């Protein structure tokens, strides 16, 4: 469950977040950020025990259909409408090590680009057999997979004619609270990615490309579902070799 060296949990602080790689807080092209972005400098501090620890989730919290969005909201014998896909990949840290036992939660619009939510007003119809949420836990080598339908793009109120490219939202728990991450996965070949103000909050093109899942033909299941591969990298942590911060290290 936990990453271990010589059988001991690793307790080093996480590598500092590369704030140039991530979007800045204030990104006026994404209008909502204007009033919701902190304006003062962040207080930087090497991680303490409050950040290097984090909750873990046992497989007992996961239900049988949690990783199958085609069926987890559908009536018995029915399934969600849309292009059937498998999304799979690995959760690693910045050192390239697997992150086993990571909880992944995902949510998305239906095949027509409509979310099942009170505040959603897009005229595309709801699919009675699609809820839009799922979750899974990575295995001992950090691998995960789930089945869903490809979400549709949708318009949103920002500019006069802004659309979100097809995407799946991901929430990830690694081994420390400071690794907590929410992001979005896009699909290879979608020309709308580069028009999206939310995508373009990220200044570095290579960083954006890290969010684009390639079509994984080798893992496509004939007559069933195409596969997309999406690897996720969480903050790495220093080795504990020369740490002297906490007793017992």
């Amino acid at each position: 469950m936990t990453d271990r060296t010589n059988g001991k949990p690793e307790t080093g602080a996480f590598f500092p977040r590369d704030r140039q790689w991530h979007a800045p807080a204030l990104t006026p092209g994404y209008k909502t950020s204007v009033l919701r972005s902190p304006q003062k400098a962040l207080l930087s501090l090497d991680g303490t025990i409050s950040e290097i620890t984090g909750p873990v989730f046992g497989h007992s919290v996961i239900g049988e259909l949690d990783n199958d969005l085609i069926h987890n909201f559908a009536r018995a014998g029915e399934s969600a409408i849309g292009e059937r896909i498998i999304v799979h990949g690995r959760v690693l840290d910045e050192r390239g090590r697997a992150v086993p036992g990571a909880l992944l939660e995902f949510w998305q619009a239906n095949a027509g680009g409509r979310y099942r939510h009170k505040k959603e007003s897009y005229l595309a119809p709801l699919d009675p057999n699609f809820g839009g949420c799922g979750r899974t836990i990575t295995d001992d080598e950090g691998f995960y997979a789930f089945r869903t339908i490809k979400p549709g793009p949708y318009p949103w109120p920002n500019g006069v004619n802004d659309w979100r490219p097809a995407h799946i939202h991901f929430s990830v728990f690694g081994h420390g609270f400071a690794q907590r991450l929410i992001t979005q996965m896009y699909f290879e070949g979608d020309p709308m990615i580069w028009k999206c103000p939310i995508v373009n909050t990220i200044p570095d093109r290579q960083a954006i490309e890290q969010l684009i899942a390639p079509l994984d033909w080798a893992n496509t299941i004939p007559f069933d579902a195409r596969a997309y591969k999406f690897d996720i990298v969480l903050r790495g942590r220093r080795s504990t070799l020369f740490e002297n911060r906490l007793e017992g290290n």
Partner: protein
Amino acid sequence: MVQQLNYLKETPSQTAGPYVHIGLTPNFCGIGGVYQADLGSHMVNEQTKGQRITITGRVIDGAGAPLRDALVEIWQADAAGLYNSPTEIRGSADANFSGWGRCATGAEDGVFTFETVKPGVVPYSSDRQMAPHISFWIVARGINVGLQTRMYFPDEAEANAVDPLLARIEHRHRVATLVATGAAPNYIFDIHLQGEKETVFLDI
């Protein structure tokens, strides 16, 4: 040429968007029957050791309006100062206390609420301790990278005065942005995203 370090880059964060509740608190937003309960909705049970407390608060934007579409998570030590985590190597935390909570801000009033216990002190280094505190993580539409901060307790003035993190805050009037108001057992912690009262957010 030198050898390559070969570190990977962290996956960039993206906003949680307006529909974060579909994924993280589906029962709260009316998607029933998929998960039995929303994760993180109960932190304590009848056996949990320690002083029961309630934390309520709001996440307030630069125009003074509370966010009604935010999601807040907290992480804290148990009453004895131990984290319920495999990375906690000093001992075993209270098995009846998860230490982690998740709450959507109210769709009408923007208020979040956590029923928990007061955390104990935890070590900063082998010879310094941190005042009792709770780690917060805030995501919402319009927030590109989840915001980290901490809540300290107003009735721990002595411990707060020597807390290593609070001590690093250069503009001393801003220390108050990390200290809850109210009194045991009902604390209030409003988080200000901008303005005069902007909360100290952490890069930690």
